[in-house]
Structure formats: C-alpha cells, structure tokens
C-alpha cells in the first residue's frame, strides 16, 4: 500500500486535490492505463487518465475532465503531473 502513497502525494501536489480512487489496467499491447480520480475541497470530482507506453516509458495520451453529466468539461492537461506520474511508474 505504501507504494501508492506516492501517487496520492503527486495528486495533491500537482492537481490540488485528494486522491479518491486509483485504477490501473495492464494491456497486452504493452501499455498501462492509469486513472486517477480525485476530489477538491468543495466536493467536485475529477478524472485524470494517462496511458503509458511501456516500451518507450512515455505517456502517449492523457485526458483530464471534471466528473458529472451536468458539470462535465474537458480540462487542460498538467505536464508537471504527467511527468511526475511517468517517473513514478517507471521507478516503482
């Protein structure tokens, strides 16, 4: 469990929110999908999904959006967050 505390810290540091759910799925095409679901102080939830290419070790796609069918809006990607996640996943 200690292993995932790092992702929690990265989420707080770069996305200003508390990690509420983490989903990882390993794909046979040598990629890893990571979905970080986090919540801000006001109870709004957000999804940040990154797809890491395990061959190159780089993120090749990512989406960031607010949750909820009435509030859904596409948000800007955060390079610092993606770099931190990429480095973290490669090390651990």
């Amino acid at each position, binding site marked *: 469990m200690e292993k995932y505390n790092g992702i929690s810290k990265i989420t707080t540091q770069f996305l*200003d929110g508390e990690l*509420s*759910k983490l989903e990882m799925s390993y794909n046979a095409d040598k990629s890893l999908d990571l979905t970080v679901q986090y919540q*801000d*102080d*006001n*109870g*709004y*939830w*957000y999804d940040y999904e990154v797809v890491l290419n395990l061959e190159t070790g780089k993120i090749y796609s990512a989406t*960031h959006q*607010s*949750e*909820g*069918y*009435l*509030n*859904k*809006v*596409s*948000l*800007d990607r955060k390079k610092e967050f993606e770099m931190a996640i990429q480095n973290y996943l490669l090390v651990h």
Partner: protein
Amino acid sequence: MVLLNTAVSSDLSTLIVNLGIIILAGLFMGRVFESMKIPAITGYLVAGLILGPITHYISYEQLAEMSIVSDIALGFIAFQVGTELWFGKLKKSGMKIVIITIVQAVATTTLVILLTLPFVDLPVALMLGAIAAATAPAPIIMIIKKYRTKGELTDTILPVVGLDDAVGVIFFGILLSISITLMGTTEAGLGFAHMLVEPLIEIGLSILIGLVIGYLSGLSARTISQGNDRKEKSLNIIVVTVLLTTGAALLFGASPILTPMLAGTVVTNMINKECYHLEEETIRFFVPPIMIAFFTIAGAQLRFDVIISAGIIGALYIVGRTIGKFAGAYAGASWVNSSDKVKKFLGVSLLPQSGVAIGLSIAAFNELAPIHMANALIIKNVVLASVLFFALIGPVLVKIAFFKANEVTEFDEKKVKTWKSTTVYQK
C-alpha cells in the same frame, strides 16, 4: 388491422431511428465543443439547432413524441441537484456561503421578475426569474483548474455554485406551482386563498412523496455491501427512485422537479461518503445517452420566430440576470464581511448558465404548455437563447474576474513565452 399495425410500427421505428440520430449528432457536436474547451452541453444544443430549426430534419411533432425522454432526464437532473444538498458539505461550507448564495439568488430572481413583468404575464416573469438563479459550474471549474486560481474568490465561488442550483430549483418548484395556479384560473375566479392553497398542496405532496421514496431508497442503499455487483445494485436503486418519484409526481399532481430532488437529498444524507461517491459514479455511467438526447432535443425545439418576437424579453432577462447576480453577490458578500475582491468579482463569475437552466425551462414548458402554449414557448425560447449567450460570454467574464482578483497562479504558455521574448528583446 394489419395496415394499422404497420403504420404504428413504422411510426415507432422512425421514432427510434430519430432518437439514435439525435444522440449521435449530440455526441459528435459535444466532442467538437469539448475539443474547443466549451462544455459539451452547448454542443448538444447546437446539434439540436442543426437537426431542428436549421435543417428541419426533425419536426416539432416528432420531438413532442419524445417527451418521455424529457421527463426521465428531468427526474435525473433534479435528483442530481438534490444530492448536492449534502448536509456534511453544507456544514463544511459554513453559514457565510449559505447567506451569499441565498441573497444573490433572491436578488437575481426578483430583478428578472421586475424587469420582464411589464412585457409578459406574471407567471412567465415568475418562471424567468426562478430559472435566472441557476448557475453552471463547468466553465468556472475549467477556469479555476486551468489557471490554478487560489484565494478568497476561488474559495467562495465553488461552494456557492454547488449550492446555487439547489436554491434555484427550490425557487423554481415553488414559483412553478404558483404560475400553474395563476395561469389555470380566470381572473374572476382567482381568490387569494385559492392562489395560496393549490401551490401549498402541490409542494406538500412533493415533500411527502420525495421524503417517503427517498427514505426507502436510502435504506436500500445502506444495505449494499462490498462486492462486484454493488454498482449494479446502486444503479437499480437510483433508477427506480428517479422513475418512481417522477412518475408519482406526474400522477398525483406534485412537482416533477421538487419530488426527485427531495428524494436525492434524503438518499444522499442517509448514506456514507463512499456510498455517495458510488451513487455519483453509477449515475454517470448510466445517464449520458439520456442527457445527450435531452439537451439535443431541447436545442431542436428552439424556434427562431419566437426568439425574434420575444427579443426584448430575452434582452431584459440577460440584463436583469447580470445586474441581479452582480448586485446580489455584492450584497451577500457585504453582509458576511467578505473582502472587496469577493464583493466585486463574485457576481460576474456566477454568470455562466447551462444544464440546470435548460432543464428547468423544459420543465416549465412541459407543465405550462397545456394551459397556455404561447407563454410556455416564450419561457423555453428565451431561456435557451440566453443559455447560448451566457455559455459563450460567461467563461470569458469568469476568466477576467479571476485575473482582476489576482488569484491566477498559472498563466497561458503563450503569454509566458511572449513575456520571455519581450525580456530578451529588451536586453
């Protein structure tokens, strides 16, 4: 008989195919707008505009046959707004936020009613005033995340927006009941007691049905244990709750907006945070096609002739809402001794309007059309056209407000580059 069956099945198949096309068009335009960083709902409305008043691919009669989609979608919207009234969250936000939210909502509603009243019947003015209170969080969230804003304005606006829709829906539910009574009664037969009693019965019934069904749903939600099928169970409970509350409200003459909203509030306050999140997540996976269809149909129902003839009312709605939000937020913030920047910029930041306002305008149309079609059309078209206006202008104003309030901590890359190159050039 065979011919009749064929005709019915042909109508039904056309309806189903049209529904598929509506969802597809909405989905496509939603994605296009999302890629332009505009909330998807605006894209759904534009898709509807293309299918309806622009190309006339789908007629108003065909759209009327899809009213069941509207009723169900409205139930889900109201339920969702109800879940935002989670007392734990309200406690955390504090009395300051509650006061600001109520004051700005009352000011906006009152001003829109007063400005539009000389040009429309009282029930129309009441409906426009109530709908004007609603605010869309999406553009505000987008700006806050993009520029990583920090400060008192940011800390105030998010909880206010979270609560604002709930306050708006409560106003709407009460004023809709009064409007129905006003419209449905001839002047000679209109007594004060009658005007008061009928809405009170409707509101009372809504509270009763919402509380009872919400309580039973809350009890059921509590029994969901950990396991792979918990999402499925949660979905079943929510769908049944929304359908029962909406259907019962329509059947017994209660409010189809207040009833599911109250059920949502009761369920949310009976379950723990984890269940609450599960509930949110579950709705999110089930509802999108219904919502896409609902908002696209709303766009297709726009009528340019009504918008043009009601132009002055639309302009007054926009002016009244803008001044009301600004003045109301200023007054509310002054009351609770907020800083000058909150007083100055909160109202402007509350201008975006979207999903809930559209939903309420459709709800008003559905309820009032059988009594007075012309008035119902004015409400729907004025609100839909204004929503498009606020969807485009709102985010720009929110951005300016945060920059003026000095709460932006991250700037556009382009601007940083320009600044850097200017520095180099100066050297």
